[in-house]
């Protein structure tokens, strides 16, 4: 069986999770569904794995933490963003904390949907894939659209900078790992500096916020 989502036929879902039981539970969830789940084993070379994708799967469902157990050489957020570059619809399913949020945000422009494992069900996966395919076609929801936005650097502490985005939340500072910044911006940041950045200010949750290009004056 297969499902036509936004004119794209999706049947085989590649399930990526470093925990075998978690993978098995996702596969079970799809038993008797329109999809055929494919439990993915250990991967050493992600490029090669994705090159062969069309032979084995049509879409990807991936957890974020993949490196810890040496299951994948990179984490799920990066895998999903690489899938996006190759036009493979994909959904990140993970429960992440603040430290991971910073890592995920770096790839957020190419991760249309992040689901909590408790939301994992056939209908939510269908809706998520629909959103993803639309973004692959260049159709963005209002909360994912980037706008040129003025920001101010509130403080710099260790490897993080804290910025205020007045048009999104004039009081709360948003933490960004320095390595998330483009190299040319990293060298000019200073407290109270203002600059323009592309941000999806239509989103409501801080975890959904992401940054596009940074402008140098």
């Amino acid at each position: 069986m297969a499902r036509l989502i936004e004119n794209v036929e999706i049947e085989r879902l590649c399930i990526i999770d470093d925990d075998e039981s978690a993978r098995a539970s996702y596969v079970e969830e799809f038993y008797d569904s329109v999809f055929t789940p494919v439990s993915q084993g250990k991967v050493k070379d992600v490029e090669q794995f994705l090159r062969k994708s069309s032979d084995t799967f049509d879409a990807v469902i991936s957890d974020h933490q993949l490196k810890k157990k040496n299951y994948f050489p990179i984490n799920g957020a990066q895998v999903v963003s690489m899938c996006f570059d190759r036009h493979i619809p994909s959904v990140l399913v993970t429960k992440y904390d603040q430290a991971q949020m910073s890592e995920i945000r770096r790839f957020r422009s190419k991760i249309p949907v992040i689901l909590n494992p408790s939301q994992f069900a056939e209908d939510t996966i269908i809706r998520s894939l629909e959103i993803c395919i639309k973004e692959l076609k260049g159709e963005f929801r209002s909360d994912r659209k980037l706008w040129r936005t003025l920001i101010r650097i509130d403080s710099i502490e260790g490897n993080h900078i804290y910025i205020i985005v007045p048009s999104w939340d004039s009081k709360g500072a948003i933490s960004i790992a320095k390595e998330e910044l483009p190299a040319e911006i990293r060298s000019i940041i200073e407290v109270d500096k203002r600059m323009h950045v592309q941000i999806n200010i239509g989103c409501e949750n801080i975890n959904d916020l992401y940054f596009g290009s940074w402008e140098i004056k």
Partner: protein
Amino acid sequence: MAIALQTLEAQIRFSTQIIKRLGEELNPSIDQSILELVKNSYDANASNCIVELDSITEIGGSIKIKDDGDGMDSDNIINGWLVLGESSKKANIKTRLGRIPSGSKGLGRLAALRMGTVAKLQSYPKDETGTYYELIIDWNKYDNAKLVEDVSLPVKKFKSTTDKYVQGTCISIENLRNKIGDREVTRIARGLILLSDPFDDDPYSFRPRLISEEFKEMEQLVARRYFDDADYHLVANVDKNGMAYASINDYKGNVLFQAKHSDLSKKRKGNIYECPPVTFDLWTFLLNEITFSTRPTSVGEVRAWLKEFGGVHLYENGLRVSPYGNPGNDWLDMNLSRAKSPEERPSTNTSIGAVRIKDSGSLLSQKTDRSGFIENDVFHEIKSFCKDALDWMARRRLEVAEKKRSAERQRSKDESSGTKESLENEIKLLSASRKSKVQKAFVKYENARKNEIKALKSEIQLYRTLSTAGITAATFSHESRGNSIKAITVSLKTIDKRIKEHIRLKYDELFKRPIDIISNSLDSLAVLGNATLSLLQREKRRPIKVSIHKIIETSIEILLPFFDGRDIKVNTDLTNGNPFVRASEAAIESIVTNLLNNSIVALEDTTIDRQIFIKTIVEESVLSIIVSDNGPGIKGINIRDIWLPGETTNQNGTGLGLTIVRDAVLDLGGKVSANANGAFGGAEFIIEIPILGI
């Protein structure tokens, strides 16, 4: 195909405005502009270059830059010096003296020349003895003309009036448009001194000079060279194959540590540094009176020297590239690393260094406005090498510090037993009656001291155990939340769905309750993990404006499943407004969470309707947080002792919760008090904190 009726020749032409814009907008400062002209002298093989400033404190002054280089003939002037925008950087073609040209696009030169209304060039070519060429640029003519090409610039040839052999170039910038202040002169002096690596020992290197008092003072300062007073000297380099090596020497030059490529490149898993050969020297100083007490130099002198020249300067093919190492420029993030881990890390105020790059392949390229290199991959590789070397040095220095600390502990122990022995010997010398009394007093003191040490040791052990428990709990929380809980949650949903599909009629009767129980238990389990991880969030340790009511509400929310599971009702009565302090969220959270935990434990022994009450009151900029319960109250312990570490009536308790509350409140400038039986019968804790506003 259409045939053209007429063909007219056309070129792109430039308005004279472009001269103004290019020269003035692309160059950052006066000192940088002058340095551009001085770099031209370096490229022209000059040994000496003198910068003279005349009447610059007023508008209309002049600047003269004179060198003894190869000079220029009319061809060099017309097809080289006057051509703007073309980089003369052909790094593989060295100059007559073997220098790699610094490469100027001419825009810096333009900015310098336009500082006055007239620029005058006189050049004595090396190969045309007895003649010189002159060019005068009157910028007013450009201001009045429409196009750049409308102004002609005659290059005149003259017979030299002197019999002496003269070669070189002299540029005068006359009738300055702006004054040049003391601070700018200091910057020019500093820029000239640092331009040609004064830390290198080469006596024949290019040494530009400024005729001014500021320069003399600075030259004397740089000449003092306090390198021998450095406590550590890091010497690191990358060879032509990208392999890195490093050593740390002490002030006598003895090698303390050595690193191979594999030691330095751990972060990059041993991969080579993809950059041209680089050497990195860093001298770091322990700037304290004790270290300098036995040296001929005073700590103040070294501090003043480092203030002027400290930081890590970057030299490309022998010439300094600004702004690296300028005051306030911390391109290797040394100050950030020190702030993050202060022990044994140098800052730009306690160290001086030079990164020397030999780039004959033009792999690095400076930005057009001369504000450093374009940050391409090669530049990042160089930066990464320097940072790796600094990290390695920090690790080795920490190792030394650890050894010192361990020796210090042993020494204190030895000293203590030595002191005890000498005291006992002194007691022996006393008269019999005095001896007995003093001995008794001493034994008493000794026992009290032992008890104190014992208590401190046990407190330290407790903190260590709790830290270990915290770290382990965080790891388990991550793991269980990420895997086990996830797999159970998804599988439970699948079972629920299938039962509903296949045995719908019996679902409510047979399956709904146990499925709900597992689902609720999963929620509680997840909360356990979330609560632990939430306490450890790095963001929470950052001092910010903290809303106390918000922290109270989120702390209750996090612990809600515990309250529900224990049948405890939490009542809040928070004052109007939003009282706030400047603190870390972690500090306020630890106060609230520990007090709530205290009540949870106290209520374990009760069978009544368990309740916790949280009330806040603001009086004259002081916020009182009153946490009370309807439990048994404080029993079996003196109320003053409840705040002491390790004091608890709970057999499995740590006795640290209330100590943490007390310490956190004291840090915020507040105070704590308690009632054994408060308004609701159980214990009542009153926290008073000065607030910034409401």
